[in-house]
């Protein structure tokens, strides 16, 4: 096992970790504003990937533009879904909102996954590369698509951090996440930010789907595992913490890649990689339910 091999594994882990982080950041953003865990997030990621694919295939748009258009499309779709399905969450008359949010997003995931089989077909699709070719590192190679996905992922996360911390809308989102009432007192229309948060979360998931599509491929059930991974990351990084999600995402990507690389029985390594992430999830939930970077006021009681 050479250093080149390990280096490539670390690079691959980082790229996958960044993609995971993009999905997880959306989950945590939605959680901090809407106070629900979105079980349909992986399916928004799937839709984003397909959307970019069809923009490339039908309109002949360049892949990067397709990704941006797909983000915009999912932003709008998510707001429509949020208006249609999630408004009872904001009414005081709704009892047991946790349960409502859970079942409605779980049902939405079931619907999206199965309608995708009909619309897109059950067979995997592969869009063209963003940048064809590979980079050589010693004896090993890394595809340009992976480097590109990692790079764009970092740019998007930086853009989100800028948005959250340096713009008035980001500050308003933060205010709503801390206290809806206080935000309303200082004149923030908190209702609007439910839509904004859900839309941004979906747009980031769409970007992740578009970026991952040339590396793996598109399939209607591609969202199931990343959705669970996003939960692992969010629990690890703490519900409501964007920075925590980023760290935890990269950590998980690395841990899984190295786990696969060093698992003693190579025929089973890949299968158990996912189980390994889930095991981390369960242990963290048992030991430290608020995660490691959790923000106190966002903890779910």
């Amino acid at each position, binding site marked *: 096992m050479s250093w080149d091999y390990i280096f490539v594994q670390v690079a691959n882990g980082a790229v996958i970790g960044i993609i995971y982080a993009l999905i997880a950041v959306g989950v945590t953003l939605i959680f901090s504003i809407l106070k*629900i865990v979105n079980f349909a997030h992986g399916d928004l990621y799937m839709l984003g990937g397909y959307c970019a694919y069809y923009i490339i295939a039908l309109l002949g748009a360049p892949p990067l533009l397709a990704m941006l258009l797909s983000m915009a499309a999912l932003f709008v779709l998510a707001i429509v879904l949020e208006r249609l399905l999630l408004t009872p969450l904001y009414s005081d008359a709704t009892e047991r909102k946790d*349960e409502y949010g859970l079942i409605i997003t779980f049902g939405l995931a*079931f619907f999206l996954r199965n*309608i995708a089989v009909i619309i897109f077909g059950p067979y995997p699709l592969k869009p063209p590369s963003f940048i064809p070719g590979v980079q050589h590192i010693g004896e090993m190679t890394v595809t340009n698509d992976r480097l590109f996905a990692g790079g764009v992922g970092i740019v998007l996360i930086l853009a989100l951090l800028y948005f959250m911390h340096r713009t008035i809308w980001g500050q308003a989102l933060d205010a709503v996440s801390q206290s809806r009432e206080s935000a309303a007192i200082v004149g923030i229309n908190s209702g609007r930010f439910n839509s904004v948060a859900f839309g941004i979360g979906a747009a980031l998931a769409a970007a992740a789907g578009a970026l991952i599509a040339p590396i793996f491929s598109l399939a209607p059930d591609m969202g199931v595992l990343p959705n669970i991974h996003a939960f692992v990351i969010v629990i690890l990084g703490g519900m409501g913490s964007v920075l925590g999600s980023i760290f935890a995402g990269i950590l998980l990507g690395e841990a899984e890649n190295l786990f696969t690389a060093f698992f003693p029985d190579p025929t089973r390594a890949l299968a158990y990689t996912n189980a390994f992430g889930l095991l981390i999830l*369960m242990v963290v939930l048992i030991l430290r339910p608020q995660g490691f970077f959790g923000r106190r006021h966002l903890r779910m009681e």
Partner: protein
Amino acid sequence: MRGLHVYILLAVAALALLFADRLSSYWMHVAIIAMFYGILASSWSLLAGYAGLFSLGHMAFASIGGYTSALLVQWYGIPIPVGMAAGVALCCALGGLIGWVCLRMSGPYLAIFTLGFSEIVRITFATEDDITAGMAGLHVERLFNTTSRLPYFYVAFALLVVSLLLMGVIVRSRWGLFLRAIREDEQAASASGVAVARFRILAFAIASGFAALAGSFYGHYIGILTPSLGGLDFMAVLVVMTVIGGMERLPTAVGGAFVVEFLLELLRGYGQWRLPLFGIILLLTMRFARNGLLTPLWLKFVQLGEPRAVTAMALRDVPQKDPAQ
């Protein structure tokens, strides 16, 4: 005449048993599978509907129960009912353990935790193929040595009735009251003297036991078990059935399982469109009739034959959950 609905149910059950042999083999299979789902839906309703513990690991317990029974019968040649009992006992213990481990978790955390548990179980069963035969499927000894489905129909019927009676006794006793108190407000329940921890663990253990019963019967009926029994797809169908029927009552949960399973078969011609269709029905149910589509029917049915005044009183006693109020 009070309790008319009980007599009607008894009469329907008697007719079903008497005329079961008139059913075609195909529809008898559908009925057996519907009863299998009925046990799962009612036990999940005990857990998620009554106690408010929204577990996504219910099918994992069915899967564990099925594999345990199948493997024990295969390895040690014990009688199948003993194997099934062993599966149930194991899942009661395991369910209690899971219930104990996630005592501090609420709502979505519990759902994520149990989802993680169920995926680990599925992945392990799929990967350890020298024991479980993996995705190729484990051949399971069948309960009866005949090609007729009639004995399976009677067994499924008996299992469903016994499960419903046992769970019915539980939810009508003080325990059921405690479970609903935990669902509505855990801290208030605890302050009123409900041993929250004990009843959460108990709810998990009991529901998991019934899931294992259903799962082990399924294995010994179908004759083959695959890890996908414990997967997210089965779990999603179970949620669809229970929520559409009405997850807060055992009979409506079972009714949901029956209605959805029969509709799935009736609409077979529409192929893939069935699942998204039921997805939409689930979303609409949750959005506009959260108590479930069968609950109003069931409440009317229960009041059949009661004098008008009593009906009015009973209606007032039913907790109304109208979002508009």
